């Protein structure tokens, strides 16, 4: 039987299926649908220093093969997470990645320091790219110098795995990816949501309270794959893919493009037990082809040129 294990830098996950931040809560609701330890890792909802209420509704709407959201990073805050949620997740023995965001460098640093001290977090993922909150980090994610400075500062206080999550709303990703690597990132997550908007043609109202929101789901998969492929060739650190994965063949597509793990987001809303189906589908794919391990696939896309 094929070995589904993958490594992302120093971390080994039992399989490459991860959840995407903001699409799995803190794991507590998903636990009711499947045993969380079937996941490679759980990437929790973005955490800030203080709890946040988030944006007024409407916060979501459906779009062709995707959806827009502007949740506004509603969350319970790092303290409640560490004290109340983390012990439950730790008991499940599931690797937890803490997704972090702040409005200035100091906030990221303080969050990372708190994660460093906490038990049961295997990596932090810096969300530099959420397009929902006016100052929610968008400026960090589009300028190489800003990414470099922030990553380096967090690196100083955080000794475990440091992931940087990139935004697709940029002209060229390579300088950004290189900046994160130079500043000491252990892995890059590609991609966050695309900035978009929708209008109800009957009421003439913007479908989101914040007018603009983040586009996710299968619609953006081609963009996500392109970012994975581009960054995987530009840096030496591992890439974690994210964007529209829905089927086991989608997981294979991300691995072929160069991702060492794949986060599943929007599709969890449709089917909360999807990670188990993806794991089983991926195993069947490998077994049928006699592929012993993921390293035989990762980055192995055949280009024509």
């Amino acid at each position, binding site marked *: 039987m094929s070995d589904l294990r993958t490594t992302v830098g120093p971390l080994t996950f039992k399989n490459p299926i991860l959840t995407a931040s*903001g*699409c*799995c*809560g803190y794991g507590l*609701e*998903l*636990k*009711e*649908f*499947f*045993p969380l330890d*079937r996941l490679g890792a759980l990437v929790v*909802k973005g955490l800030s220093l203080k709890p946040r*209420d*988030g944006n*007024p*509704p*409407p*916060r*979501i*709407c*459906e779009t*062709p*093969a*995707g*959806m827009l*959201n502007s*949740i506004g990073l*509603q969350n319970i805050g790092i303290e409640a997470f560490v004290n109340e949620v983390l012990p439950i997740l730790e008991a499940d023995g599931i690797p937890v990645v803490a997704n972090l965001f702040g409005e200035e460098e100091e906030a990221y640093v303080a969050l990372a320091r708190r994660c460093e001290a906490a038990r049961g977090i295997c990596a932090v993922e810096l969300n530099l790219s959420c397009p929902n909150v006016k100052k929610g980090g968008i400026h960090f994610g589009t300028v190489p110098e800003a990414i470099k400075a922030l990553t380096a500062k967090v690196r100083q206080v955080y000794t475990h795995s440091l992931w940087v999550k990139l935004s697709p709303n940029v002209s060229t990703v390579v300088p950004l990816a290189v900046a994160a690597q130079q500043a000491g990132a252990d892995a890059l997550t590609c991609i966050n949501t695309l900035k978009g908007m929708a209008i109800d043609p009957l009421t003439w109202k913007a479908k989101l309270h914040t007018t603009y929101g983040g586009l996710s*789901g*299968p*619609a953006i998969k081609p963009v996500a794959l392109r970012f994975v492929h581009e960054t995987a060739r530009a840096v030496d650190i591992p890439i974690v893919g994210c964007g529209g994965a*829905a089927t086991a063949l989608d997981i294979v597509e991300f691995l072929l493009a160069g991702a060492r793990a794949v986060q599943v987001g*929007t599709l*969890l*809303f*449709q*089917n*909360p*037990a999807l990670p*188990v*189906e993806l794991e*089983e589908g991926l195993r069947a794919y490998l077994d049928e082809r006699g592929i012993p391990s993921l390293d035989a696939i990762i980055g192995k896309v055949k280009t024509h040129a």
Partner: protein
Amino acid sequence: MMPQMKKILKGNLLRRTGLGGGYHLLEFTAPGLAGEAGPGQFVMVRAGSTHHPLLSRPFSILWAEGDTLHLLVKAVGEGTRLLTTMGEGEATLVLGPLGAEFPLADGAVLVAGGYGMAPLYFYARRHRCPASLHLFYGARTAQHLLLLDRWRALLPEAHLHFVTEDGSLGEKGLVTAPLERFLKANPAAAGPVLACGPTPMMKASAAIARAADRPCYVSMDEPMACGFGICLGCVVPATAGGYVCSCTKGPVFDAAAIRWEAL
């Protein structure tokens, strides 16, 4: 082997009955799920089988018994169009039962608008004494007032207050007018007002109930991406501050818990 700790089912469409006015009665086999459901709860149903539409759709449970789940579905957009043209025998993903129930109480006053009638019908069916209930049921025209025979079999005729905007059946106007008169005329009664329908109707019902000093519960109709608490998309502004998810803390809320002015 897929472990199933909460109910995700391949629901098989048993029967599909057009009721006119764009409404359809859908009966699914959903073993296990149906038996556990209570009035006010809902299910998420996948429409179609491709990447579009992507998200499942929430529907209140109209009635559930044994292995059979009954839904009342109005075709309004793409998802409901696909659902209401599904072939009998076809399967789709059904998730549930989800959310909070209406509190069972004698003498409850039910206020229904459109497909909002569904959870209230379930409520009446499950009630130990449906004859103690009153129903205020409004719609655009007589054609949009559904399952009247079933209601007549449950509640005494005098407890059925039908209202249509065009006056084609019952009183002409909005359902809130007779509701207000009724509460004023029965000041001693204490049964709660339970409302489900368009948001303005529920907002008005909540105000009328408060004025009459009656408890009021409403079933909110917010867009939902997941239905079980992980997307945070379905929130309503809370009196206590911040926002609450209408899929896990609701859809049935104590009307006093909702910050109506922020809606």
